[in-house]
């Protein structure tokens, strides 16, 4: 498994892909610095920061897009280059292949997305407990998205395009305006985890989150179901 993990890690480190996700991850911090530079006062953690930076920018945009960019490529690149047969015609269990690919995605995406949220929050004076909660919730959200898009990359060569539509329409638009959608939304789960883990620190989210247990069940279900779907797909597909 280590050999496939290391190879996948190297495959994900394409120059353009790394540049794009680094820029995306740096956006919240750059925005905070820009507001400080041009604004008269300082930006506070509560109110506009949680609403704009954490909800809309990070959980609604940066987290899914950065994770999708990496996860869709995990198998997508192998299918496009027709190199997947190198992996599946080895005495390696399909479970190990999927796990290694997913792990490579998480090793890159997790630190980036977590650092993106934590660095910007720390800049506006968020307490250590809030930063810890943020790291935990974002890690759960990234893991859920990673399994979804790893499966999608095995399903279609257009995973990135379909994924972008899903992120913008379902996670971005519908989960904001239709409250029921939040029960079927990774963004909804992430926000509910933030609020459930630290109700005081993320009190601004109280009005728009689902129940904490529903978020835990939802996140776990997405991770398990999409991991199993990826495994099933790899077992049953015709490999090009």
């Amino acid at each position: 498994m280590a050999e496939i993990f290391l190879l996948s890690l190297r495959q994900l480190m394409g120059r353009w892909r790394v540049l794009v996700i680094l820029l995306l991850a740096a956006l919240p911090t750059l925005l905070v610095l820009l507001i400080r530079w041009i604004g008269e006062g300082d930006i506070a953690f509560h109110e506009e920061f949680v609403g704009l930076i954490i909800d809309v920018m990070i959980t609604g945009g940066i987290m899914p897009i950065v994770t999708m960019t990496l996860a869709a490529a995990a198998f997508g690149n192998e299918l496009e280059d027709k190199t997947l047969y190198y992996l599946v015609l080895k005495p390696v269990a399909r479970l190990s292949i999927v796990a290694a690919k997913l792990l490579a995605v998480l090793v890159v995406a997790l630190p980036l997305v977590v650092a993106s949220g934590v660095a910007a929050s720390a800049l506006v004076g968020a307490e250590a407990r809030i930063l810890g909660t943020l790291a935990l919730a974002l890690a759960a959200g990234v893991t859920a998205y990673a399994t979804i898009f790893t499966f999608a990359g095995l399903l279609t060569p257009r995973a990135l395009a379909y994924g972008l539509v899903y992120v913008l329409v379902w996670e971005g638009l519908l989960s904001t305006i239709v409250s029921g959608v939040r029960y079927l939304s990774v963004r909804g789960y992430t926000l509910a985890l933030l609020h459930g883990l630290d109700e005081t620190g993320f009190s601004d989210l109280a009005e728009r989150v689902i129940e904490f247990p529903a978020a835990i069940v939802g996140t776990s279900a997405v991770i398990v179901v999409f991991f199993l779907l990826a495994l099933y797909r790899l077992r049953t597909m015709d490999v090009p």
Partner: protein
Amino acid sequence: MTASQDPVISVESVSKWYGSVVAVNEVSFGIEPGVTGLLGPNGAGKTTLLKMIEGLAAPSDGAVTIFGETPRNNPDLFRRVGVMSEHEAVYGFQTGRQFVAWSAKLHGVTAIAEATARAIERVGLSDAQDRPLGTYSRGMRQRMRLAAAIVHEPEAIILDEPLNGTDPRQRIEFHDLMRQLADEGRTILISSHILEEVETLADRILLMVSGKLAASGDYRAIRAKLDEQPYNVRIVSSDPRRLAAALIELESIESVALGADNDVIVLSKNVAVLQRSLPRIAKDRGIRLERVEPLDESLESVFSYIVEG
């Protein structure tokens, strides 16, 4: 290398269809140790068949086994099987040695460095092993992929169009290596759309046309069958009229026509007879032969003879 009498690779009534398109139609054969050539024109269904043998694709009907086991979702089987696909893509950032060593590790080889060095030596690329694969020529890439496919000393080796991109010298070396591997008791299945690539190498030939197994067996027997078929040959010589007059006397010649470029187009009922007679006729009459070329030697036409025959 197998304990039982069963074929190493067994294909039984295998079909594969995609919607209404039938790619492979009711194909059956068994493959024993030695070199077997899977021949057929492009689009004959060779690659689809190989994918089913390798377990990369599920047969729509029928069954495939290697060493008595189904290859589909059977990773452990590939400790004994080495595969080189038709796709030439490699991980361009790896050096040749890294690529072969990576393959060795995944195959569970214990002495990785030694096995890697031995496999690379066998394909004659020791000097280039530390260069990134992205800098290799097509032929070198093919050879390094072959090294990765045999690094774990597999008992069965499946190679899909392995000679694509290789030059004549590399082909000779490839032939020698395959013979060496076959002499060690391994079972080798090589697909190709070029008859000449495999005819001198394979102990047995499987001919596929339009998804069906058109013929199988000893190459010479198949060749003899081919030789009995009508064959168009173009001959450029110093005296086409006299040559045409002499050729029409032969019993095996069905028709002779003078071409526009001072050449003779001959339709021979038995190409072997023509091959034997032509030099003698030319010598006896003092005619210089400048070029003799078959007009329909593509596999498509050759195979169509067999199928129609």
